[in-house]
Each structure stands twice: as C-alpha cells, then as structure tokens.
C-alpha cells in the first residue's frame, strides 16, 4: 500500500524511514524522578526511565498501578508535583513538543459530527486541511464507506479506528495509546494492531498501555512494568516474556506463561 501515515508522499525511490533508527527528533524520552500524588496519596513514586528506541513500547501493570497516569504525564496533559519529563532534552511543558505527539484514549472522545468532519477538524486545527489527506486517513482506518455517518453512531471498534486516524492526522512523531483495544473483539483488536504496526513502520514512536499479554507479545519491542506506582522493570519484550527481572513482573506473567507454553512454546 502506498499510503503514508505521516502525510509524506511515498516514493519508491526513497526507502521507507528506518524504524530502527534511534531518533525521531523527540527521542530519547527522559523521565527523571517523577512524583505524582492526588489528595495526599502518592500514585507515581520517583519514576525515572529512558526510552530511546523508535519502536513500540508497552506499558504494563495491574489495575491501578498508575499506567494511565504515567502516560498522561509523558504526554504533558497531567503535571506531576516534582520531576522532569523531557523529549530529546525539551521539557514536555513546551507546547511545541506536545503538538508533535498524539494521544488515543481508552474511550474515544469523538466530536458530534460526521466521521469525515472529525478528521477535517484536526487537519484544519493544524492548518493541514486537504481532502486527499482526509480520504487517505479514512482509507487507512477502513472507514471510507462511513465518511458521512455520525461518528458517535460507529461501533466501538470503528470509533477506536477513527480516533487513531484522527490522532495520525496531526502527523505525530509519537503516538501514545491508553488501552486502545480494551472491550474490542479479536477481529477489531487485530485491525487496531495492524494500524499500530503500520504507524510504527512509518517511524512513529509508539507507547502503548495494555493489559493483554498476548498483544504485548505480538507488538512490543520493550516493556515497562509498573507496580504500585513504581517502575518494577524496563526490559526488552523477549526478556520480559521469558525471564522477567522483577518479582512483580514474574508473578504478573507467570499464569500466562504456563498456559501459553502449554499451547504453544515461546
């Protein structure tokens, strides 16, 4: 497919951007001693981490571990009491840095307009209005046929695909996703995963919160495991799924490891 997720014309002569290169211009992401508490309860505790690969990072952990809070802090829409978040040395508070990222929320928040109008809205916002680009994004999301339908009348899976297409409309260098496939059936999930893969192939850095171990194994290159507001470990996906370094990580995947090894050896 000659459709570009980043809005750059795809030419056969120039090779696709190399996804293994280590910088999109926003990487590395450096988080230093982030502490966040709400109403006196510490929810993120002295979090420090560095992400410098331009691939897919999975953010995992139990319910209430702080994944949704952390991804919002990384995106700069939630400000911690202390600590720094820097994208390639620039603070995330800088609106120019934030505009180079997009976020997809667990529950898509679509405007009360048509499917096409939802994309047009974001394109216009970034002064990128173009009918060609809109149609291209709709095609990527598999929603060309539903362009005129009211966005809020789409099915859950379609809404999530529209939310991703809309997030891509800003030509982000980083795409943050908070459980984009929660509540979706396996088919809808695999469509979203292929969108994620496509975006990653276009050199968009992806940070993905997920509970789905199989999904993390399918898409992730590295895993950050959060436990009760702490980073328990940050390992390559292979390491995490074979010999997790932390006790918390080990106990989280142990049940899965057993069932998974019985069915298909890792």
């Amino acid at each position, binding site marked *: 497919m000659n459709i570009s997720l980043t809005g750059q014309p795809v030419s056969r002569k120039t090779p696709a951007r190399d996804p293994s290169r280590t910088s999109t211009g926003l990487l590395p992401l450096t988080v230093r001693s982030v502490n966040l508490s709400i109403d006196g309860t510490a929810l993120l505790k002295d979090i420090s981490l560095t992400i410098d690969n331009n691939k897919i990072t999975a953010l995992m952990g139990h319910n209430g571990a702080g994944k949704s809070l952390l991804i*919002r802090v990384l*995106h700069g*829409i939630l400000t911690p009491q202390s600590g720094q978040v820097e994208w390639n040395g620039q603070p995330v508070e800088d*609106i120019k840095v*934030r*505009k180079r990222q*997009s*976020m997809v*929320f667990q529950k898509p*928040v679509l*405007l*009360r*307009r048509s499917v096409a109008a939802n994309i047009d*809205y*974001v394109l216009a*916002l970034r002064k990128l209005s173009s009918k060609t680009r809109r149609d291209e994004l709709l095609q990527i999301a598999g929603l060309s046929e539903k362009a005129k339908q*009211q966005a809020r009348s789409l099915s859950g899976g379609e809404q999530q695909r529209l939310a991703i297409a809309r997030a891509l409309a*800003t030509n982000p260098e980083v795409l943050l996703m908070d459980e984009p496939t929660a509540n979706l059936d396996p088919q809808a999930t695999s469509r979203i995963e292929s969108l994620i893969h496509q975006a990653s192939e276009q050199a968009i850095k992806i940070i993905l919160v997920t509970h789905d171990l199989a999904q993390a194994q399918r898409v992730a290159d590295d895993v950050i495991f959060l436990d009760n507001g702490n980073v328990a470990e940050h390992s390559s996906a292979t390491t995490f799924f074979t010999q997790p370094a932390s006790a918390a990580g080990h106990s989280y995947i142990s049940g899965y490891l057993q069932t998974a090894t019985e069915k298909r050896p890792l």
Partner: protein
Amino acid sequence: MQDFQHSFTYAFRLVVQADATLLEIVSLSLRVSVGATLLACLIGLPLGAILATRDFPGKWLLTVITNTLMGMPPVVLGLLVYMLLSRAGPLGWLEMLYTPGAMILVQFLLVLPIVTALTRQIIEDSWQEYKEQFRSLCLSNTTTILTLLWDTRNGLLTAALAGFARAISEVGAVIIVGGNINHLTRVMTTAIALETSKGDLALALALGMILLSIALVVNALVYSARLRVT
C-alpha cells in the same frame, strides 16, 4: 354557550382573513421577542460557555447570580427597568419608556439568565468528557469554546427556544415598560389581557390561537432538527 361559540367562529374568521390589527400585533410580538432572544443568545451563549470551562475569580458569584435571576419574578424586573427608564431615572434621557425598545430590553434581561444558565449546564457536561482530548490537541481557549458551542448545538437550540417561549409569553413586565399602547407597543399577551377585560373574547381568542400555533411550530422545528442531527 352561544356567546362562546360565536367568539370561536369570529376568532377563526379573524385569523383566516388575516385581520390587519391582528397582524400588526403578531408581527410586533415576534419582532420584540425574536430580537430579545437573539441578543440574549449573543451574550448568554459565550458567557455560559466561559462559566462552564474557565476558572476565574468571581465565577462562583456570577453563577449564583445567573441562577437566582432565572427565578426572578418578571413584574419585579419590569418595575426595575421602569425605574431605570422613567424620566427621572438614570437612563431617562434615552426616552425609551413605552417603546418597543423598552420591551426588548426587559425581555432580554428576562431571557439572558435562562440562556446563560442552561448553556453553562449543557456545556459543562460535554466539557468533562472532552477536556483531556482538547488538552491533548493543544486547543486554544477560543477554539475550545467554539467547538463546544457547535457540538452542543442541539441542546443550545432548545435553551434558546426555552428563552424565546419565556419572552413571547411574558405579560406583566412588558405592560409595565411598554404600556400596551395601540399601534405602538401592543403585543399578543398584553392585547389578550386587555381584550379579555373589555369582553372582546374573539380577538383575545384569535391571538391565543396564534400564540399556541407559534409554540407548536417552534417545537416541531426543534424536534425535527434534533432527529436530523443526532
């Protein structure tokens, strides 16, 4: 009973024949109330949206005031505007008392808190839902408000029509500042009150029927607009 029947027949005839007096009264009513509602929306929609989305000192007070004004007895409002506009009053030099302008002013003041309070409520609900998404998109305050106003247009249309209904059905305040002067400030409600007291039930009834039809048409329009949009 015969009298009753007679009045109805006569009222129908007035409506069907588009009686000149009747038309004059209806058209003034519409101009005054539509004008007052439009003005109230012009200020009330953005004001309600700001109250819903922004934090500023005095916001709490402003919210309480609009909510209180919503329940203000119209006659009291009429009295206040009368004092303001009367020859000795601070705005007496405008010579607006007993003009359609005075009626627009009083209806505007009556509708403004309704539109503002309803807008604030409607927008606040959506704002809670949209907040994070908008922050993620780095929307400016103006874009935020314009987007919210457009996305809640159905609810806001209902709010505006609730305001219009309040305006066009008002009697007390309008009589005080308008004076119910024939050919100048006589509107449907004040005419109904007058004709009924004079015993001319036919004209009163005809006006009543038109008031009801306006309410019907307006509601039908809103309902069909809703069906198309959602």
